[in-house]
C-alpha cells in the first residue's frame, strides 16, 4: 500500500462514502514551463478529512489553487487531468463559480479583509450563500464555533491577533456554506495552544458534515485530525494511506514529524564575537495599549536566546524595539554598553545588530549573491562613482567582499544557489538567504523573526544547522522568535516567554517547558 502507490491507492474512497472531490492525473505548469504537479490523483470521500503533506515547493498550494481555480493569477495552468466535484468538472471555472458550487478555500496566510469589520468579513463570506435563511444559520454556527467573533463583531479585522484572524478566515469560508472546505496551512505562525484549538475546530466542522482538505506543514496536527493523508513530493503523490499508517511510516516520521533533538550541538565554538545584550524594563505603548510592559532579559555573548509566547504577546514588537523600528516608552536596551534605545534602524545595524524578517523581505528579481552583497553595504568604502567606473580599488574591494559572501553562503549551505534569482528559490531556501544576508553584515548579534515558520522538519533542520554553524564558526549570538517548539528546544541556550506583553518565564529550555504558567498560556495541554 505504501511506497509506490498507484493512482487508485491514493486516498481511495472507503466505506464511509463515495468520493465527493476527485482529482485525477492532474498536471499543472507555471509560465508554460515549470512543472509544479505531475499527474496527481486523489479522492476525498464525502465527510472525510484528507491531509496533504509535503515540503515547501512540493506542490501543495498549487494543488489547492488548481481546485479553487486561482492558478491563473499566478501564471499557472492545468496542463492535464481532471478535477471533479461529484460528477461535475471544476476545470476552467472561475473561482467564484467554484466557491458557489460548494468548494471554498481558506487561503494561506489567512488574508482577512483587514479594513472591514469582523461582521463585514463574515458577511462577505456569506454573499455566495443560497438564501437569507442559509446565511443566518451559517452565522449562528460560526458564532457558536468561535464566540470571539461575535464579541469582536464591530472591530476591524486587521486588529485581531493571528489566531483570531485564522478563526475569522475559517468562519468567513463557512459562511458560504461549503460542501468541501480547503484549508491552506491554518496553523502557520500560530502558537501551539492555538494550533490545538484550530485542530479541534476542524474536526468539529467535519462532524457537521463538511468535507475537509487540509494542507499542513504541521504534520503532527494534520495527521491527528485527518482520516487519510497523502504526501506530495516534487509534484507527485509519493505516499498515501490512512493517517495512522502514515504516522507510523518511518520516512514520514523522519521527514515530517521529527523524532527529538535536532541540530546536534556543534563541537566547535569560535570565540564569541557578540557582546552582551541587556534588555532592561522595556515598555512600549501603542495609543492606550501596552504592547510590552517592563520586559527584561539578557542575551549572553555567543549564545542563542529564544523569545516565545502566544500570538500578540509582543515578540515582534520586542524585536522591532531592539532593531530601532519602534521606540520604547520606558526602559533601556544596552548592547555591549551602548544604549540602543532611541537609535534609528541604520545606526543599530552599524553597531553590529542585524535581523531577518517574519515575512521574507528580499529583492526577488536580484540574484542571491546581489542580495547578500547588499548587506555588505555598510562595510564597503567605494562610492558609486568609483564603483560605477570600475576603478581598480573598487573592483578589488568588491572581489574581497564577494569572497567573504561566498564563505558565509557556504556556511549556510547556499553556495550552489548564489547565482540564481531569489524568485526561483523555494520558500525554505529564501528564509536561509535572509539569514545569510543578516550574517553578511558581520553582526555580533542577529535577530531572527520566525525563521522556520511554515517549514517542514527537514527544512527547519537545515535552518537550525545554519544557525548553529553561524554561532560555531562566527561566534555571534542570536535572538530567535519562533513558535516551533521542537526547533526552539533544539537550538536555544535560554528561553524567555512573553504573554500579554509581560515576561512570564525565563530560564533554560527544560525549565521553561515544565513551567505551569507557560503550559497554560502557550504550550497547551500535552505539548
Amino acid at each position: 500500500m505504501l511506497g509506490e502507490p498507484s493512482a487508485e491507492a491514493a486516498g481511495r474512497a472507503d466505506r464511509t462514502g463515495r468520493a465527493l472531490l476527485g482529482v485525477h492525473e492532474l498536471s499543472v505548469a507555471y509560465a508554460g514551463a515549470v512543472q509544479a504537479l505531475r499527474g496527481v490523483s486523489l479522492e476525498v470521500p464525502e465527510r472525510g478529512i484528507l491531509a496533504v503533506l509535503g515540503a515547501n515547493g512540493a506542490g501543495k498550494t498549487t494543488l489547492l489553487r488548481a481546485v479553487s481555480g486561482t492558478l491563473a493569477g499566478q501564471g499557472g495552468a492545468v496542463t492535464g487531468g481532471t478535477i471533479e466535484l461529484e460528477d461535475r468538472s471544476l476545470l476552467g471555472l472561475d473561482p467564484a463559480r467554484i466557491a458557489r458550487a460548494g468548494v471554498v478555500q481558506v487561503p494561506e496566510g489567512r488574508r482577512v479583509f483587514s479594513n472591514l469589520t469582523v461582521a463585514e468579513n463574515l458577511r462577505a463570506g456569506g454573499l455566495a450563500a443560497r438564501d437569507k435563511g442559509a446565511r443566518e444559520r451559517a452565522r449562528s454556527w460560526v458564532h457558536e464555533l468561535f464566540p470571539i467573533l461575535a464579541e469582536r463583531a464591530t472591530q476591524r479585522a486587521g486588529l485581531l491577533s493571528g489566531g483570531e484572524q485564522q478563526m475569522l478566515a475559517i468562519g468567513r469560508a463557512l459562511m458560504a456554506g461549503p460542501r468541501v472546505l480547503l484549508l491552506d496551512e491554518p496553523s502557520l505562525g500560530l502558537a501551539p495552544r492555538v494550533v490545538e484549538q484550530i485542530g479541534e475546530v476542524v474536526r468539529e466542522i467535519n462532524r457537521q458534515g463538511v468535507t475537509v482538505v487540509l494542507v499542513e506543514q504541521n504534520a503532527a496536527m494534520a495527521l491527528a485530525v485527518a482520516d487519510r493523508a497523502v504526501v506530495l513530493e516534487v509534484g507527485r503523490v509519493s505516499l498515501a494511506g490512512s493517517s495512522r499508517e502514515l504516522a507510523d511510516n518511518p520516512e514520514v516520521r523522519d521527514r515530517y514529524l521529527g523524532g527529538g533533538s535536532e541540530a546536534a550541538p556543534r563541537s566547535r565554538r569560535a570565540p564569541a564575537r557578540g557582546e552582551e545584550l541587556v534588555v532592561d524594563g522595556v515598555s512600549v505603548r501603542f495609543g492606550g495599549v501596552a504592547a510590552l510592559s517592563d520586559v527584561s532579559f539578557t542575551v549572553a555573548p555567543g549564545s542563542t536566546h529564544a523569545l516565545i509566547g502566544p500570538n500578540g504577546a509582543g515578540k515582534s514588537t520586542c524585536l522591532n524595539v531592539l532593531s530601532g523600528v519602534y521606540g520604547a516608552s520606558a526602559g533601556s536596551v544596552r548592547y555591549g554598553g551602548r544604549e540602543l534605545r532611541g537609535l534609528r534602524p541604520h545606526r543599530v545595524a552599524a553597531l553590529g545588530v542585524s535581523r531577518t524578517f517574519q515575512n521574507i523581505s528580499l529583492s526577488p528579481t536580484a540574484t542571491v549573491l546581489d542580495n547578500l552583497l547588499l548587506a555588505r553595504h555598510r562595510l564597503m568604502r567605494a562610492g558609486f562613482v568609483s564603483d560605477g567606473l570600475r576603478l581598480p580599488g573598487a573592483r578589488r574591494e568588491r572581489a574581497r567582499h564577494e569572497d567573504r559572501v561566498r564563505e558565509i553562503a557556504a556556511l549556510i549551505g547556499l553556495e550552489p544557489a548564489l547565482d540564481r534569482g531569489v524568485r526561483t528559490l523555494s520558500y525554505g531556501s529564501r528564509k536561509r538567504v535572509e539569514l545569510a544576508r543578516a550574517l553578511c553584515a558581520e553582526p555580533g548579534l542577529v535577530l531572527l523573526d520566525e525563521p522556520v515558520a511554515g517549514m517542514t522538519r527537514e527544512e527547519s533542520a537545515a535552518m537550525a544547522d545554519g544557525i548553529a554553524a553561524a554561532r560555531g564558526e562566527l561566534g555571534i549570538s542570536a535572538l530567535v522568535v519562533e513558535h516551533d517548539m521542537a526547533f526552539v528546544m533544539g537550538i536555544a541556550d535560554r528561553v524567555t516567554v512573553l504573554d500579554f506583553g509581560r515576561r512570564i518565564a525565563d530560564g533554560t529550555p527544560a525549565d521553561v517547558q515544565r513551567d505551569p504558567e507557560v503550559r497554560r498560556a502557550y504550550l497547551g495541554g500535552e505539548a
Partner: protein
Amino acid sequence: MNQFVTLLVGGVLLGAIYALVALGFVTIFRATGVFNFAQGSVLLLGAYVIGRLHDSIGFWPAAGAGIIVAALASLLIDALLIRRIRRADLGTLAILTLGVDILLLTELTRRIGTDVVSIGAPWGSDVVELAGIRVPASRVIAGGVALVLVAALAVAVKVTDWGVAMRSAAEDGETASLMGIRLNRVAAGAWALAGAFAAVAGLFLTSFPAAGVTAGVGIVALAAIPAVVLGGFDSPEGSVVGGLVIGVVSVLCAGYQDELSFLGRGIGTVAPFVVMLLVLLVRPSGLFGTREVTRV
C-alpha cells in the same frame, strides 16, 4: 469681502462637480486597480448625448439617456478591453484607457465641430440670490445633486451587499473570489457607476455659466485628477474633499487673477496642480490615501 464669499461659494459648488468626477476615478480604481483616463471623454459623451437629444425628446428623458449611454460606454470599456487583460500591468491598463480617451474624444470633437451645443437645462441661465450672494441656479442644483449622490454612494458602500462585495474585492480580489464574490460583476458595477457620475458632472459642467457642450469640456474633467491624487487615490472621502479643495482653489485663483498677475495669466488652471504638489510634499499618500504599510 463680498467678492471673496461669492468666489468661495462658487468654488465649493464647482468643487462638488469635480468631486463627482473624482469619485468615479476612485470607484474604478478601488474595484479594478485601473486609473481610467477615459473618464473625461465619457463625461463629454454623456453631455453630448443630452445636448443632441433634448430638443427632440425633452430635457429629462435626454438627461436619463445621456447618463445611461455614459454608464454603458464606461461598462463596455471594462467588458471589451480591460476584462480580457485584467492581470496586465497597471501601467499598461492606464495607457489603454488613455488610448480609448483619445479615440472617443476625437470622434466627439469631430461631431461637435465648432458648434456649441446647448445642454437645454430648464434652469437655463437663472441666477439665485443666497444671503446676498448671486450664484447660478445650475451650480446650486449641482451642489445639491452631488451631495445626494455622494451620500447615497457612501451609504450603499457601507451597508449593502454590493458595498461589502465591493470593499472586499478592493482589498483582496483573489480572496474575495474564493468567497464566491464575482469580481467581473463588481468591476462592471464600478465602471457603470463611474460613467453615470461622469455624465451627471458633464451635465452641470456644460450648463450655465459654461457656454454649452464644447470639445473642451473633456479636458476640464482632467481638473478632477489633482483632486483624486491629493485625496489619496483610493479614498472616496478623499476624492470629495479633494474635489472641493480644487474647486475652491481654482475659482479663487481665477477670481483674484488681477491681484495674482505677478504669477502670470491663467494661474487658475495651474493652481490645482500646485496644490496637489504641495499636499504630496507633506503627505505623500494624499490626504486620505491608504499608506503603504509594511509590517516588519
